[in-house]
């Protein structure tokens, strides 16, 4: 028995860009800067609002479960719909100015995925110990994908969004109450006036990660038809795209797939599904 949790939402990552060093705290030479009044850049990929630095007029951060399927069959009204999807242990895009990976091919290190809703917790690590060069955690490719990104975000042209947002920022700038917010809004206004920086929006980084490390399935309410199996790998297939250089956020959409251990109870409960998809084909080789 296989459970597939489809997830999506905006994440934030505040990291300096080339030619700034990856651990640059404020941003100097690249286009990403910590604005006046904001804390230092920290490279951490955040899928939930905790720890993010929200900027006014930007989409809210939060990645949630959007679909639940059991053996390919959609479960409308499932209690895990709306569950929070998170990456634990302060993961970063580990590119380090090309030492680990080129732009667009940065691995997410470490990779420790968690789904939580009320008392329910389901989490698993890619591995318990990650090692350079983190090949399994790199994207399998970078592709243009405006159609998918537009479907997922509702945005077809980020430059249009920026034009509207610039108007909001400029209006706020005129009534900003103090020097700190004036400095921050002025810099955002300048960035939003540079549509070249919106050009990264239609690109998607494609990830396909097997989770075979330690984990936990805490399901006191019996939300799943059975306990998650940890003796076989789980898979997380997702893309990151829709990069918004003003909000320092992007969109993630994907599926976590895992098997259930001792699924007899669930098997008995499940209706036969004549349209259930055949088992997935063998995974393609990873990018070296």
């Amino acid at each position, binding site marked *: 028995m296989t459970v597939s949790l489809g997830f999506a939402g905006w994440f934030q990552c505040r990291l300096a860009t080339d030619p700034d060093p990856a651990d640059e705290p404020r941003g100097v030479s690249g286009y990403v800067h910590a604005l006046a009044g904001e804390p230092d850049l920290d490279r951490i990929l955040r899928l939930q609002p905790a720890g993010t630095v929200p900027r006014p007029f930007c989409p809210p951060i939060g990645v949630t479960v959007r679909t639940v399927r059991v053996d390919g069959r959609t479960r409308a009204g499932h209690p895990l719909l709306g569950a929070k999807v998170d990456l634990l242990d302060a993961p970063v895009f580990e590119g380090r100015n090309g*030492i680990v990976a080129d732009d667009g091919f940065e691995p997410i290190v470490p990779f420790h995925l968690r789904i939580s809703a009320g008392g329910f917790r389901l989490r698993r690590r890619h591995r318990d110990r990650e090692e350079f060069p983190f090949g399994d955690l790199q994207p399998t490719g970078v592709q243009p994908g405006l159609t998918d990104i537009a479907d997922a975000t509702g945005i077809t042209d980020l430059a249009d969004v920026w034009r509207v947002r610039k108007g909001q920022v400029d209006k706020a700038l005129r009534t900003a109450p103090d020097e700190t917010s004036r400095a921050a809004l002025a810099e955002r206004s300048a960035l939003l006036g540079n549509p070249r920086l919106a050009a990264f929006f239609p690109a998607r980084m494609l990830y396909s990660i097997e989770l075979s490390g330690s984990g936990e399935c805490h399901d006191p309410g019996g939300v799943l038809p059975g306990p998650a199996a940890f003796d076989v790998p789980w898979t997380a297939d997702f893309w990151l795209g829709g990069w918004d250089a003003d909000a320092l956020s992007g969109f993630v959409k994907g599926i976590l797939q895992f098997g259930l251990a001792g699924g007899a109870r669930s098997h008995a409960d499940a209706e036969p599904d004549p349209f259930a998809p055949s088992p997935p084909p063998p995974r393609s080789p990873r990018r070296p």
Partner: protein
Amino acid sequence: MTVDTREELIDALVEASEVEHGVLLQYLFAAYSLKKRADEGLGPAQQERVRRWAGALLAVARQEMAHLGCVCNLMSAIGGAPRLGRPNFPQPAHRYYPFDFRLRPYGDEALYQFVCFELPEGEPAPAPPGPAFAAAAGVVPDPLTYVFLGELYAKIRHGFEVIDERRLFIGPRFAQDTDDWSNRLSLRLVTDRRTALAAIDAIVLEGEGAPGSRTPSHYTTFLALRSALGAEPEGFAPARPVVWDPRTRSHPDAPDAGTLIAHPRTVRVAELANSVYVSVLMMLLQYYSFGGESPAQRDALRLALRNLMSAVFRPLAEVLTELPVARDGAGGTAGAPFEIYTEVQIATQPANRWPILLERLDAAAAAASELGAELPRLAFLGQNLRWLGRNLRGVAGGTV
């Protein structure tokens, strides 16, 4: 006083290499000295302005790196070898060059000197250099005299114009560097008089601007930075309390005082920065002294150079600007000394270049990791150095 033989042209290009190299280090030193955080006394708007100043100065320094690469190509085209040595800091005016070479924190004195470096021909010039030299007769080159960078390049340009083109360009084109180092930095291939003059004109244009329009240029960038600094309130200090010309020891080629770093931990970090800097120079020498390296090895070397400069050296230099110079922690802070302890050289046998370089990177990684116990950012840099070494080992072949 003119450049009209191959020997004089090579001498002038050696001078240009040293000057470009020395000038860009002074720009980097000043940029790294700038404050970043609000807790260093910067107001929100000042924080943003100072960030822009650092960005502008670093952008100019990157163009100077491209100029140095262009000079290496010009040298290669006429059969010369790349020159990446230079005298240590500080150097008073007229010992080696017509202007003094000092590592100064960002401020009006530094910016004044930077304007002088990039002063265009025709603009009001600073006082001329001291004694005039008579032209040499016969087999030795004429003494090379100039007051500003543009004048030096004018002499080099003259050499390329008058020396017989068919005899001059003897260097193989594959030894030159035409790779795009980044989307903002690419170099020109020099194969004949036309391409040589175009390369020189591009260097001068970036430095001085065109006679009718000086913007954009390094010269006008520095004028604007100086003007912006002057507009700040009296007493505003954009730079950390970085001392002039920090050094870990005295050098025969720079016997002047400088500021000796006495704090033991700062000395260790400064020596590490010097070691990484010399590794960068050795890698540049290897890159420009083509010894049969494969395309993959050249690509790896170029990438590793970028890695080392952005992801290791710059953070190290910035860390130093917050470390004390004096043993008791009082007084000013240090900065990257850019010291060259002995002549920078690489093995004549290409196979021997890799193990020597990798030994250096391993030693630097170990030192950074050890210092990381006290300075967390250095642990991160130690990891970068270790991984960078592993990347190079992957292409170095059977010699390591």
